[in-house]
């Protein structure tokens, strides 16, 4: 069975990118918006990455800058306080006023406390062994100077100026020179550390630049790829539609040409007087009748498809008895099946409640399914129509399932997703010269959905296919409303 269709040309492409095109084809089916959404997500992720990287680089630069400023300030304060310690001590030499001398001594001691704190801070923050050793040496030299400073201060306060000067020259100056050298060494080490930090910052900045360029390039490529993919997807869609339309025109032409040829030939024979006896004329009349009906049916299918294209609901959905559906399906397909020598087995559960739908629509849908089964049903010549409620029990069935099963050629799993597309015909049915428009299943699906139902298929290649129409059972109030409407309609007629 199977509506197989899609002309082989539909899937064949003129571009040497079959895998990419298959992917794009799939994408185009779900809308290019998905692709755009993915690109936007990609750009957003990339943007977040860029921002994060820039922030990290800025934080690193800020840290280095802050560290440099703080380090320079610390060294400057250390040098100033060391000088202040010595300066205040020497100021005490310039006066004989004990009160001023005490004040200078106090200033010297305040400054030396700050120097001690600065050295301790430097020692705590020292990282390299060289810095640690320098911090300890600076502390040692500073304590040596302070011991001399204390002696000098004591001598000054005692009034022994000469002794104070001698002490300072002998011990204070060299001790303070050691301190000064240590502070210069601190400055030198800090300079080297700052140079390293600057080099690291430059390297980090360069890395950030490379990353930024890389990310922007990636974003550009991604965007370009997305645009290319969208354009290609749209082009493929248009090509596919054009191919489908060409196939449709070819199929319709073929379907029309066959009965037309028969009609013309019969008409020629009649016009030329080749047919003279009554029996032969009756036979030709029957042929003309049959072929014209076939053409009318084909035109009806096309018109029906065109009318359902806008998806507007053209059916009146109301409770329909199941037995009417079965009777209508049998009646509308009897001629077709008997003509083709196909037997229709009907298995229906008893006492099924009415379903919601339009009898004409349901009949048309089943007619298409049965016609499809007759066309692709193979040599078994048997179609099974099964009507049952859903679920294992009948306590609270939700829907009615009307299945049309054949034992024909079946449908390949890769084609299942296409068989409800308009104009789609499988390359296999093309190959075996089974003609059709590719509209039957598409129409059946649209009709089912227009009535609130759905159409499903289960198929296995070379085993057969089963199409199932799912319709909802009518509820109590819907049945009552339908009964009231019917009564009112009869009353108005009488």
């Amino acid at each position: 069975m199977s509506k197989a269709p899609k002309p082989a040309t539909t899937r064949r492409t003129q571009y040497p990118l079959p895998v990419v095109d298959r992917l794009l084809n799939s994408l185009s089916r779900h809308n290019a918006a998905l692709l755009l959404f993915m690109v936007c997500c990609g750009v957003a992720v990339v943007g977040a990455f860029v921002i994060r990287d820039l922030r990290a680089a800025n934080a690193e630069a800020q840290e280095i800058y802050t560290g440099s400023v703080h380090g320079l300030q610390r060294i400057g304060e250390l040098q100033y306080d060391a000088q202040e310690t010595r300066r205040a001590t020497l100021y005490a030499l310039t006066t004989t006023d004990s009160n001023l001398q005490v004040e200078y001594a106090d200033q010297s001691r305040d400054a030396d406390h700050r120097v001690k704190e600065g050295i301790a801070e430097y020692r705590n923050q020292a990282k390299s062994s060289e810095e640690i050793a320098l911090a300890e040496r600076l502390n040692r030299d500073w304590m040596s100077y302070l011991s001399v400073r204390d002696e000098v201060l004591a001598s000054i306060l005692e009034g022994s100026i000469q002794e104070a000067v001698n002490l300072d020259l002998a011990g204070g100056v060299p001790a303070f020179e050691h301190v000064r050298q240590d502070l210069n060494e601190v400055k030198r080490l800090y300079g080297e550390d700052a140079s390293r930090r600057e080099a690291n910052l430059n390297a980090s900045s360069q890395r950030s630049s490379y990353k930024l360029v890389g990310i922007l390039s990636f974003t550009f490529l991604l965007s370009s790829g997305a645009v290319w993919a969208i354009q290609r997807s749209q082009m493929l869609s248009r090509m596919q539609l054009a191919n489908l339309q060409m196939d449709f025109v070819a199929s319709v032409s073929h379907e029309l040409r066959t009965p037309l040829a028969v009609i013309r030939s019969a008409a020629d024979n009649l016009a030329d007087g080749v047919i003279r006896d009554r029996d032969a004329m009756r036979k030709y009349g029957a042929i003309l009748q049959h072929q014209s009906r076939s053409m009318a049916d084909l035109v009806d299918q096309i018109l029906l498809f065109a009318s359902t294209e806008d998806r507007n609901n053209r059916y009146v959905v109301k409770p329909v008895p199941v037995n009417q559906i079965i009777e209508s399906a049998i009646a509308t397909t009897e001629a077709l099946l008997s003509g083709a020598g196909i037997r229709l087995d009907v298995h229906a559960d008893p006492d099924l409640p009415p379903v919601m739908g339009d009898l004409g629509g349901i009949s048309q849908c089943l007619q298409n399914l049965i016609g499809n089964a007759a066309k692709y049903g193979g040599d078994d010549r048997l179609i099974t129509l099964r009507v049952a409620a859903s679920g294992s029990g009948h306590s609270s069935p939700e829907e009615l399932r009307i299945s049309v099963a054949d034992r024909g050629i079946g449908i390949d799993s890769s084609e299942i997703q296409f068989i409800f597309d308009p104009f789609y015909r499988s390359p296999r049915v093309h190959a075996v010269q089974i003609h059709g428009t590719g509209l039957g299943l598409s129409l059946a699906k649209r009709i089912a959905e227009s009535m609130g139902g759905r159409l499903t298929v289960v198929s296995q290649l070379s085993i057969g296919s089963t199409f199932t129409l799912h319709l909802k059972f009518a509820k109590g109030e819907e049945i009552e409303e339908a009964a009231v409407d019917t009564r009112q309609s009869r009353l108005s007629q009488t």
Partner: protein
Amino acid sequence: MTALLMAWPHVEAVRASIIVPGLFASEQVSATEPLVIVVNRSNPVNDLSWAELRKIFLGNRSHWSNGRRITLVMREPGEAERMTMLRDVCGMNEDQLKNHYLHGLYTGEILVSPKILASPTGVRKFVFNVPGAIGYMRLGDLDSTVKVLSIDELLPEDKGYRLRVPLEVANVN
């Protein structure tokens, strides 16, 4: 400072009585507090006799037992602490003390004249900075940067401690 003051609770009691509103002026004047003798904390000396104290403050002793030169620190003339020291330790008035030092310096018996500091804080800082310094201050001006000497083995909180200075009523109020 607080810890040291806790050692002399009676001083606090006296000070407290001074600031009680309605206290008579005669009662306030009669209130005294110990005048403590302080040296540098590195000084090994802990006790002096009354006679040794007098010799030091008259400039008749120039070195400590460890060889450090003695540097005498005094308050400015007119201060209650100085007047107490002159009266109770030196047994002189200002003029007599001045003449004594001039004579001693002239004869070479006294090597250095006393250093004059304007405030108890100055005295305390001077003593803190100079290992051989000795000075005096009110008990209330004492802190841990200097060491208190006992006189004739009597500490300021002991009964019978002789060096006492009138409380500074105006300052307290």
